[in-house]
């Protein structure tokens, strides 16, 4: 059974709706789904009080949940989901797909902070922009993204992929400061520009910046020039890249590829090659 959700109003208060999750919807009747508990501000409500819930019988095993409309106030959609699919035709709120293990989430709008936080598997694809802390762990935790894939077609905020261990984050727009902060493994690709401090305190892993970067941390050392960089199977960027290694402060050996052409201000590093 597939489920369509239509917001019944423009939400003003924060909505916490962990129940919007294919694993939870599975094998539930329409009535049961409508009765699922959500929070609107400090009041507990039923899902059916906030959304018009529509069920479509299908032959597929794993359900597809589609939200039609603006869900930018709706937090924790798809938290911990293991299978199935969520499609959001509009914006989505914070903590989308946090600790997700499998399945797919697609958003045809913008997403606020902590999307894919502490993700362990599955795919999140965002056609708009994503907020801060994309794929990053909860406060105080070092449990970064362990696996899975996040694709953002717009821009992202600060600290994308912080503490990342495995998996891939592809950003086809620009990234804010501290992309790949304290990263330990995996790959972050920023196709366009990147604010400064990319890879700060990284220990291992790969960051690729295809556009302009304000500056490279002084605690990175230049390793060489590369003609191309492989992002993942089937995606290779053919362009000259500087390769930096760091972060020295953490005795790290992370790889930071910076496209040469958009960054003439880094040419002084070439004297070390």
């Amino acid at each position: 059974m597939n489920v369509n959700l239509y917001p019944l109003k423009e939400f003003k208060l924060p909505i916490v709706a962990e129940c919007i999750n294919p694993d939870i919807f599975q094998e539930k009747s329409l009535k049961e789904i409508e009765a699922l508990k959500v929070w609107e501000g400090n009041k507990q409500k039923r899902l059916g009080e906030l959304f018009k819930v529509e069920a479509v019988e299908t032959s597929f095993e794993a359900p597809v949940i589609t939200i039609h409309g603006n869900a930018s106030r709706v937090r924790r959609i798809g938290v911990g989901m293991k299978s199935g699919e969520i499609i959001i035709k509009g914006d989505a709120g914070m903590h989308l797909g946090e600790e997700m293990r499998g399945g797919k989430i697609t958003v045809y709008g913008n997403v606020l902070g902590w999307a894919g936080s502490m993700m362990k598997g599955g795919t999140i694809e965002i056609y708009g922009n994503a907020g801060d802390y994309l794929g990053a762990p909860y406060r105080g935790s070092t449990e970064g993204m362990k696996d899975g894939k996040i694709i953002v077609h717009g821009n992202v905020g600060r600290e994308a992929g912080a503490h990342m261990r495995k998996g891939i984050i592809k950003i086809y727009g620009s990234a804010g400061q501290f992309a790949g902060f304290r990263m330990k493994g995996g790959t972050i690709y920023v196709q366009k520009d990147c604010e400064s401090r990319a890879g700060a305190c990284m220990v291992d892993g790969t960051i690729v910046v295809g556009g302009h970067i304000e500056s490279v941390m002084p605690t990175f050392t230049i390793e060489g020039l590369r003609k191309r960089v492989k992002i993942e199977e089937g995606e290779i960027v053919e362009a000259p890249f500087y390769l930096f290694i760091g972060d020295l402060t953490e005795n790290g050996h992370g790889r930071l590829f910076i496209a040469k052409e958009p960054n003439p201000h880094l040419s002084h590093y070439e004297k070390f090659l």
Partner: protein
Amino acid sequence: MELLIRNGFVYDPINGVNGEKMDIAVKDGKIVEKVNERRAKKIDATGMTIMPGGIDIHSHIAGGKVNAGRLLRPEDHFKDVEPKTAVTRSGVGYSIPSTFTTGYRYARMGWTTVMDPAMPPLEAKHTHEELSDTPIIDKASYPLLGDWWFVLEYLRDGKIEECARHVAWMIKATKGYAIKLVNPGGLEAWGFGRNVESIDDPVPYFGITPREIIRGLCKVNKLLNLPHTIHVHTNNLGKPGNYVTAIETMRCVEDLAEDGKPAIHITHCQFCAFKGDDWRTFESGAEEIANYVNAHSHVTMDMGQVIFTDTTTMTADGPFQYTLHMLSGNKWTNHDVETETSAGIVPFHYRRKSYVHATQWSIGLELALLIKDPWKILMTTDHPNGGPFIAYPRIVAWLMSRKAREATLKRINPKARSRSLLPSIDRELDFYEIAIVTRAGQAKALGLKNKGHLGVGADADIAIYNFNPETMDPSKKYKAVRRAFKRAAYTIKSGHVVVKDGEVLKHIDGATMWVDVQLREPCEIEVNENMKRRFKEYWTVEFENYPVSEDYLAVSHPIPVKADV
């Protein structure tokens, strides 16, 4: 209010009651001979186990260090939450629960008295503010005095009586309960990033050794007639080979013991029962410690049992915590307190598959089982250092059941398993002995006269567990033991039924106990004049802003003690 608990199997070791079926009567918060049967509220405890409320001699539940630990670890709390109910406040849990949650969780297990073992005197108000916010349970705290400049200076100059008078002042000023020593001398050295290596290694700039501090404060303790002995966290804690230091520490006060009475409490002994030269050759020193303790009567100790889980280590032993930070690479908080002490905090995960951690787990149980007299070795996890206190039901099961130990042994590091002494130990504690290591022995070691037993006149702090010792064998049904201790059928605190079937029914305040030391001659003014003069030199607060006034204690329970000085 009157209460009659009927027909349970009662374990009350202080009064020699061993599983007898009897009724217990409660009136106005005390155990009484009998109550008016018609008027009294009745609890049917048929087929249940009854013990005095649990006591914890060493559990870090309040104060600057604990709170710095809470602050450090949002990732520890965010998945373990306690929503507000009609009667309880909300909070967060796991290894360093918020204050309300701490009180409720102890009560749910049937524990009613908890001693916070490390209070930096300068920050004593903080400890008491938190204790006052810790509901249900009674509590007290031990001021850290082993590195206090006054103590170091007086003991160096051989002025024991002078030292005793200042300690007396300090215990009153901080509303403390016992003298706590942590890595004596080492914390002062840590002020400049150093440590002491043995009990005879001089403290930099002070011309005194840890041995002299331990002996000196042991004498002071005796002069003041404090209810508990000195409470010692040994030098070299957490280092391979340190069982030698632990034995030397116990030995150095042998001659100060009187009539077979305890003179020293070695706390979380598991952490100072390490044999070997380094982490590679690391092994258990439990047997050596147990042999010593079995042959001597001047020592009590507690386990400091390790649990395989993620927890937060915290002690006043700043240099040890730094070592742990370097070993684990985990985040590290340090907080040194001027003229007094230090503290360190490091999150830590004890893993079954780690040789060292698994051996530590074994050491704690070996100590508890090899030391023959249960009055000498009390159950603790040194919460949260060995693991959070909510693991007590599991430890009770390990102590009562060989089968439970084997089940865990099977899953630990193979090298640790093969070297563990546990497979060679058949001993299984019975409920009587469990009542000693979790209640009666704790009360006796602490000198708490009205707690840890169910005799007439005792505080009506009672735990009722849904386990029938007549029909069930704890050795086999260890999981049922665990369940019973996890959620007490009833917890009664000061005569109030506060927990039923593991649910908190009532939020009441517990009392804060402190020792009101009364010196033979009222020479307090002299002490104060002396203090005032040195106050400006030593501390950065004014003399009159230093002491904890009684209104910081939600319920103040002073225990008057007459000193011999």
